[in-house]
């Protein structure tokens, strides 16, 4: 009876700390909403309305049909029809276009008779991702035209590639970043906020009073963790609701296992927070360490923004110890690809192992500090 009363008094206290601090509350609950909206609508890798110049010396039925198709897509806006290919350089230099399409002369004739009709695509590759996306879109449009044209001419024995974008047919960026934002937010709230909350008690001197009291250190820590766990669950729900109803990213797999893997990740993040709190002495230091040691790897090494597969081997190796990487992988599989549990067993196992290791180490370190 005494113990549970002690414990509930303590958890109440932690919730009061959080609820009384309006600004932190706003950040805690508003952050996922802002991040989702920011990533969903403002920061996007999709290409829309790229400015295009077309050099078309043929101006025949074939080129017209291609240009029409390009124009009709939402990706391209054909802004310039220069008379000389040299003008295109100028347009690129002035930053007026991102893509140029050059046909050779007598395009239709060559297409039908000599077979040496050609199209040149020039893309501004200062942003390589955007360039390759634009070239990809344009090539698809050209391929579609070719297919249609071949069918009209009834040429037998052709290979018609049929392309399907699996799991994300509309190539939405949201499918990639929703798991990323989940990893980021949960890591931030759990690790950073827990470590700050524990270190704050060290700074104000109340930790000494608690340690001199009969309450067990484990209780102190555990009651710190519970409010942030509940807040993380609220955030998880917010993110999932926003991504399903606002961004249109469905939960194609098992919601149950998605929640379980999220809990596992939250546990990892919370224990990281406790670990940080045993190392540092001030709230500022706790914030900096969580920022540098946790946020940066999540942003850079988890595959959220940059694909891990393209990194140097050292960084790829380093990315294996970033918990968010495994979490994001698992979420992608469960949520986007809709795979069954057996396909994410590896991620589950790794996260569980990390959680176990971190809890053991941080509790040990916390006890050592006491003696």
């Amino acid at each position, binding site marked *: 009876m005494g113990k549970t009363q002690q414990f509930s*008094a303590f958890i109440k*206290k932690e919730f009061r700390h959080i609820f*009384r601090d309006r600004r932190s509350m706003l950040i805690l609950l508003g952050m996922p909403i802002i991040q989702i909206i920011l990533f969903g609508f403002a920061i996007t890798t999709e290409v829309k309305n790229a400015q295009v110049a077309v050099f078309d010396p043929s101006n025949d039925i074939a080129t017209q049909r291609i240009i029409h198709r390009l124009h009709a897509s939402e990706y391209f806006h054909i802004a310039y029809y220069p008379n000389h290919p040299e003008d295109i350089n100028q347009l690129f230099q002035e930053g007026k276009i991102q893509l140029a399409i050059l046909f050779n002369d007598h395009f239709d004739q060559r297409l039908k008779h000599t077979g040496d009709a050609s199209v040149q695509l020039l893309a501004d590759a200062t942003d390589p991702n955007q360039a390759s996306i634009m070239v990809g879109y344009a090539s698809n449009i050209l391929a579609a035209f070719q297919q249609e044209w071949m069918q009209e001419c009834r040429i037998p024995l052709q290979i018609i590639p049929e392309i399907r974008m699996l799991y994300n047919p509309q190539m939405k960026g949201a499918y990639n970043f929703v798991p990323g934002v989940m990893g980021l937010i949960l890591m931030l709230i759990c690790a950073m906020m827990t470590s700050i909350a524990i270190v704050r008690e060290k700074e104000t001197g109340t930790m000494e*009073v608690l340690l*001199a*009291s*009969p309450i067990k250190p484990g209780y102190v820590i555990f009651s710190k963790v519970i409010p942030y766990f509940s807040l993380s669950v609220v955030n998880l729900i917010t993110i999932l609701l926003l991504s399903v109803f606002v961004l249109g990213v469905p939960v194609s797999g098992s919601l149950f296992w998605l929640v379980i893997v999220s809990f596992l990740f939250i546990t990892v993040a919370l224990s990281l927070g406790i670990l940080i709190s045993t190392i540092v002495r001030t709230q500022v230091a706790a914030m900096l360490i969580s920022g540098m040691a946790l946020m940066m790897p999540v942003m850079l090494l988890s595959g959220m923004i940059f694909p891990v597969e393209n990194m140097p081997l050292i960084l790829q190796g380093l990315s294996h110890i970033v918990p968010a990487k495994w979490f994001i992988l698992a979420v992608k599989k469960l949520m986007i690809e809709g795979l069954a549990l057996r396909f994410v067993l590896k991620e589950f196992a790794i996260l569980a192992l990390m959680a176990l290791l971190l809890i053991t180490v941080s509790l040990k370190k916390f006890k050592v500090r006491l003696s």
Partner: protein
Amino acid sequence: MNTIEVHELTKKFGDFTAVDSISFDVATGEVLGFLGANGAGKTTAMRMLCGLSKPSSGQGRVAGFDIVRQPEQIKKNIGYMSQKFSLYEDLKVWENIRLFAGIYGMENRLIATKTDEMLHRLGFASEKNTIVKTLPLGWKQKLAFSVSIFHEPKIVFLDEPTGGVDPITRRQFWELIYQAAHRGITLFVTTHYMDEAEYCNRISMMVDGRIEALGTPKQLKQQFQATSIDEVFRKLARKAVRNE
């Protein structure tokens, strides 16, 4: 009867001997002033007595329990007020009382009646629902002290409890200390204010981890042929080799 009995208590951190074989007793209901320059080992000694730190050697009993083997029992029977303000600033007055009383395992109903009684005695009855942050420092200190003895501990450790408080409030604070001593609570007080030291029943002075003097203020002044405790302290502190 003694509430604290310490025999050759020593604490080493590597090669550094923070507390060097100290021995003393404190009687029940006594107010012991624990003095020493910064770095003399006061805090380390106090932490050992509170069960926060294990001694390297020596023995001690606090409230009848062994400081090495029964630190958990000691913690149940002591109160502690640290040199930094030891209540939660963002909680209300009653919430702080409720929390700490709860930690010491007091019954809810008892807490409620005792809270009203205590606030009334301090003249704080109207501040029950006030957020602690908004109280003046002097009130906070008095409140923190009252919370530290709320669960009726056998002994309470006060680590520089009156730092930064004005003289009038300090005087009032010492009245609270005497009241507690009168009720049979033993008080172990560290302080920087030498005039305050004169209020204690006995004074211990630490220099470089050792207790160099121990006695009533009167005895110490005689022993060191000084007119004030301040002078005694300065004569002793001059011998210190250790820097802060």
